């Protein structure tokens, strides 16, 4: 029986660099490895000994495309440690900021990174030749997200307005109102985009994964709630590390995550969020989900782009509601006294749940930091799904099989830069 090895050196159209190794014995898939090399946890080490106020600023530097997520997880964790309760106004504005990041991330990913796979293009550039209106639409949606993060975050490239306790400054009503016309256009564009992707032809793949996301009884999850699983479990954030455990794997320096209760990997991200929280999507997003007949529990990872579309619609609709409202600028942030303590938070980055835990001392210094990004947690489940997928595509010519594997990895929109060094793809056939 011959051994085959297929190598894809570099995954394209994913954040960061990465690769995939697949080894087959004849037609039997022996091994699938997402070979992600995680650098030393530099940021956690960097944070030790620093003032707790540095956490949102330093962690925002971890990722160039989801800085808001890192800031949200860090400030909520610190506020828990300090016993700070934010006002409903601050709470709402933090959701608005997160809407900006989701719009930016989902808009770009759907149009320029993932859609080309379904339309037979090698890249967003190649697609732009035949679909310039769609690409321009995606870029305009991304721009809106940037504008919102710029306004409320203080800077698009590295938000500086978020602080423990709230914001350094709340923009005026006039500043918020200026975004309304663009966001009204954007809501319609998001609906149009979701209808567009719902019409793509999707490969069949059924994942038996466990879906996991934050969940809140009153709203679509972003900053608060408990961890919900598709098997019906609810896990308090304070028990996150007890239930969602990182473990070493022999083939990679990247840590994999499994549920302690089941011993199995799990999936975070838009597909999980929509599957677990569909009834709390905004009215337009819910109506659209029914219109396009998006299945109640979608188990095909390729269709995650539709879930992103529904979240795009939700983000625009929620953002519009908040932008149009009156906002008090009198108390942009809560005051606090230092106290020793431990705080934890899980918030929903575009790619899934981002967990932060901090221990602080009585002088307000960080003693210990633990950051678990969503892509790290998804790696094990991505490998499981890839193994099933490889079995379906392996009879194809090698370069096509490798490309189809890449396509599946892109469905998860992995943010490899958050947690990895680089990734190469190798498929060994024997």
């Amino acid at each position, binding site marked *: 029986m011959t051994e085959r090895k297929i190598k894809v050196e570099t995954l394209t159209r994913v954040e960061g660099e990465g690769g995939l190794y697949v080894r087959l014995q004849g037609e039997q898939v022996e091994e699938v490895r997402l070979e992600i090399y995680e650098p030393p946890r530099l940021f956690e080490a960097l944070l030790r000994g620093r003032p707790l106020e540095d956490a949102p600023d330093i962690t925002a530097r971890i990722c*160039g495309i989801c800085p808001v997520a890192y800031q949200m997880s860090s400030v909520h964790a610190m506020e828990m440690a300090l016993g700070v309760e934010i006002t409903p106004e601050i709470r709402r504005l933090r959701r608005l900021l997160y809407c900006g990041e989701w719009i930016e991330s989902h808009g*770009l990913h759907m149009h320029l990174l993932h859609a080309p796979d379904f339309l037979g293009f090698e890249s*967003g550039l190649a697609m732009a030749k035949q679909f310039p209106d769609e690409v321009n639409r995606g*870029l305009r949606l991304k*721009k809106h997200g940037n504008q919102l993060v710029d306004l409320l975050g203080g800077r698009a*490239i590295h938000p500086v307005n978020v602080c423990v306790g709230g914001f350094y400054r709340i923009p005026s009503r006039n500043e918020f109102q200026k975004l309304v016309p663009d966001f009204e256009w954007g809501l319609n564009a998001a609906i149009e985009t979701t209808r567009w992707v719902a019409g793509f032809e999707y490969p069949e793949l059924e994942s038996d994964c466990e879906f996991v996301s934050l969940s809140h009884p009153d709203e679509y999850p972003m900053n608060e709630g408990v961890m919900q699983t598709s098997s019906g479990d609810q896990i308090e954030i304070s028990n996150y590390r007890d239930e969602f455990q990182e473990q070493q794997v022999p083939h990679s320096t990247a840590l994999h995550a499994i549920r302690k209760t089941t011993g199995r990997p799990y999936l975070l991200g838009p597909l999980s969020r929509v599957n677990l929280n569909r009834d709390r999507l905004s009215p337009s997003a819910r109506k659209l989900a029914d219109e396009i007949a998006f299945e109640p529990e979608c188990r095909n990872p390729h269709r995650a782009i539709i879930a992103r579309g529904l979240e795009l619609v939700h983000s625009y609709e929620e953002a519009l509601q908040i932008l149009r409202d009156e906002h008090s600028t009198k108390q942009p942030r809560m005051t606090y006294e230092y106290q020793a303590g431990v705080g934890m938070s899980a918030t929903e980055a575009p790619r899934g749940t981002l967990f932060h835990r901090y221990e602080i001392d009585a002088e307000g210094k960080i003693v210990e930091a633990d950051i678990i990004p969503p892509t790290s947690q998804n790696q094990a489940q991505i490998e499981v799904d890839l193994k099933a997928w490889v079995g379906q595509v392996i009879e194809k010519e090698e370069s096509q099989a490798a490309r189809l594997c890449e396509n599946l990895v892109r469905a998860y929109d992995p943010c490899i830069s958050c947690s990895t060094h680089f990734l190469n793809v190798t498929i060994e056939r024997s």
Partner: protein
Amino acid sequence: MTDSRQIQVAGLGSPHGDDQAGWEIVRALEKRGLSQAIVHLSRTPDDLLNWLDPAYPLVICDACRGGGPVGSVHRWQWPTTELDQVNWSGTHQIALPGVLSLAAELGQLPELVIIWGVEISETIPGDAISSEVSAGVERAVESICREWDVIRSLEVDHA
């Protein structure tokens, strides 16, 4: 048609170590008070597509790898395939050459695009910019200033 009265200047980079090179060049140019500069700092190359105006020349400043010793300064004028020989940062593999190609395809790219790269090695989060790259930043700034008025004085191409 390109308007020579203003120049768009983009610094690409991140707050990490030598990857700050692009931002540092732009900050230094701002301190020099160059006339008619429209300045942007971006974390990712695709940010250019948020604000790029085809009416004005574009100068891009970024860190790069693969073109020579650390701190060395390179200049390219678009279009050029030489950019593909260099490693650029960029999220989602939409690196700088891809973004410029996309902008051209969408009719957003100015006629004149100049790219300045400062050679770096590894970027360590939290690190300060190295002395070699700082020196390269200074050299890039001098070179950009020398050709600034030349770019601004280019004749407008009337259709």
